[in-house]
């Protein structure tokens, strides 16, 4: 990867349609490496999630011609919430296979053109329309079902295993789970105070998060990402070409994808695919994945780590930009990606491992800096224009590894010290599809 660009994500960009948003991100990316001109680009991979939001089918063709890319080759990609992550990998594959020397990945979404609850309806159409959607068709409801079970498996049967009264034990477990989820929300909103691209940067307390509007029990508004308008682009090229454009290229050293059933109700009870640091005896009585964990995330992580030669993600990665559509799914994903064992996500959060050093979160984070997760603010604070989101993560990770955060954010606070390797993680509806890509600094 040699350059990238992102538009500021916003609730609505009425003065830009999807073509102009992509153009702005694209112009920014090309301005960053003036030696790269449009004629050098061999082709494109373009992603957006929903024709319902765009009310323009084949919108990728209109991006292609707005950028002046015709008659070069292009493929449109769609994979629910993981659309942007898939586009990132498709551009990587176009170059890695030798099909192209230079490939542009571009993604966008314009979600503001319908009212919020209509937008929720469009998104919920990405659940089974026979068995799921007619019941209330609501993604926050689905993630709430998942986290209630996650809390049951790991807090009720863990920290609160000794509480005799079943209902009291579950009540205590949910209270505890919500408190820890709020720490994630505080982290991501606060990190975003230093990210000018973010839609909802703010300083919150745990109480603010817990007391915000209940959307689907136990998830409150501040634990949930919002809909956004936005675009992002990334340019991939072969190693030989990369040197012509930048002395700070970033290498993509691992890609992984995983899938699971569309319906939550179909998730079977089997065995955990193990990470190198886990043993079968760790999970003897754990029905997996059930609805509490994302098997697709585990599969994507395993493939990407194997590809990149990573055996211990905490040691081998310096940061992760992961798909925190919900504070709950960020904690679930720590476990899927092997940052801690299944069941340890809440304790891992409380210890502070995924927090940034040097930022005052308003509560103690003893292990801050161990493996920063969503230093940019993630989806919860940056917004989630679906087709752009996975590419946004790629661009933020790229700048992080280049050491150019201060230049692009106009603020050095989020720049990690000398990061060598990072991961990006993109996730589709209830974990039905996940991509993980590993990026590494390609210069000394």
């Amino acid at each position: 990867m040699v350059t990238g660009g992102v538009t500021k994500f916003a609730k609505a960009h009425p003065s830009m349609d999807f073509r102009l948003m992509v153009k702005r991100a694209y112009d920014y990316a090309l301005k960053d490496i003036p030696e790269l001109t449009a004629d050098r680009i061999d082709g494109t991979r373009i992603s957006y999630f929903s024709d319902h939001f765009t009310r323009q089918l084949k919108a990728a063709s209109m991006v292609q011609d707005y950028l002046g890319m015709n008659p070069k080759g292009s493929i449109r990609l769609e994979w629910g919430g993981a659309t942007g992550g898939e586009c990132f990998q498709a551009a990587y594959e176009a170059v890695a296979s030798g099909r192209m020397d230079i490939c542009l990945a571009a993604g966008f979404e314009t979600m503001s053109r319908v009212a919020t609850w209509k937008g929720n309806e469009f998104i919920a159409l990405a659940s089974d329309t026979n068995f799921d959607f007619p019941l209330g068709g609501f993604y926050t409801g689905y993630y709430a079902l998942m986290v209630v079970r996650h809390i049951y498996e790991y807090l009720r049967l863990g920290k609160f295993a000794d509480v005799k009264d079943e209902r009291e034990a579950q009540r205590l477990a949910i209270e505890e789970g919500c408190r820890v989820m709020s720490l994630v929300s505080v982290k991501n909103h606060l990190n975003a105070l230093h990210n000018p691209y973010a839609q909802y940067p703010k300083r919150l307390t745990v109480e603010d998060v817990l007391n915000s509007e209940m959307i689907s029990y136990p998830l409150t508004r501040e634990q949930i990402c919002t809909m956004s308008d936005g675009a992002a682009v990334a340019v991939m090229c072969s190693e030989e070409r990369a040197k012509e454009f930048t002395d700070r290229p970033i290498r993509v050293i691992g890609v992984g994808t995983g899938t699971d059933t569309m319906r939550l109700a179909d998730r079977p009870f089997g065995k955990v695919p193990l990470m190198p640091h886990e043993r079968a005896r760790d999970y003897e009585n754990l029905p997996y994945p059930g609805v509490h964990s994302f098997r697709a995330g585990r599969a994507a992580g395993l493939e990407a780590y194997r590809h990149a030669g990573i055996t211990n993600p905490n040691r081998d990665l310096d940061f992760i930009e992961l798909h925190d559509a919900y504070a709950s799914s960020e904690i679930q994903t720590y476990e899927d990606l092997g940052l801690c064992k299944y069941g340890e996500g809440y304790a891992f959060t409380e210890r502070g491992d995924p927090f940034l050093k040097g930022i005052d979160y308003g509560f103690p984070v003893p292990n801050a800096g161990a493996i920063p997760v969503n230093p940019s603010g993630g989806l919860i604070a940056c917004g989630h224009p679906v087709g752009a989101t996975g590419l946004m993560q790629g661009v933020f990770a790229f700048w992080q590894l280049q050491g150019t955060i201060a230049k692009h954010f106009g603020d050095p606070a989020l720049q990690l010290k000398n990061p060598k390797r990072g991961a990006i993680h993109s996730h589709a509806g209830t974990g039905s599809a996940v991509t993980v890509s590993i990026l590494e600094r390609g210069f000394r």
Partner: protein
Amino acid sequence: MRARPPTFDKFRDVQAELERTGAAIFRDTDGVESLVIKFPYQINYIHSYAEDSPFFLGLAEGKLKGSKCRRVKCGFVFATPRSHCMVCGSPTEWFDLPLTGRLHSWTTCHFGSEAFLKETPYNLALVEFAGVGSVLLARLKDCVESDLYVGMPVEARFDPNPKYSITDVWFVPSG
């Protein structure tokens, strides 16, 4: 000739104007003006339940139909039916699920898609059945958020005026 639509700096004012007259101009912080119009978008989709049809016809008869893999060595049992086994790919056969189960997980939705907003708050539940390898998503009625817990026994109720929708069945607390 039509008079130029009114201009607004706030997008919600634009949306209100669209409801009134169907057109408005939005001016952003850079002074850029964009014409915004109301563009209705409705469809009646001709939806076939196809191979899932027996399940929905069953609901109208007060039956919950699951499916079971026909291959003896597999025999996986699905609460949410499918006509071919997800584990081994063999055809499945229909069977009647018990009408009682337990909550595998639950939530109370205080918001929902536009189509369901007027029904909020409503409960969603994943229901597990003894001896069945997957679960079923359904509404849960006659109870409130504070009543609910994982493992709670529930039983099925059916709409006496079926609409041929998954909402023709719901669960209530047992007993």
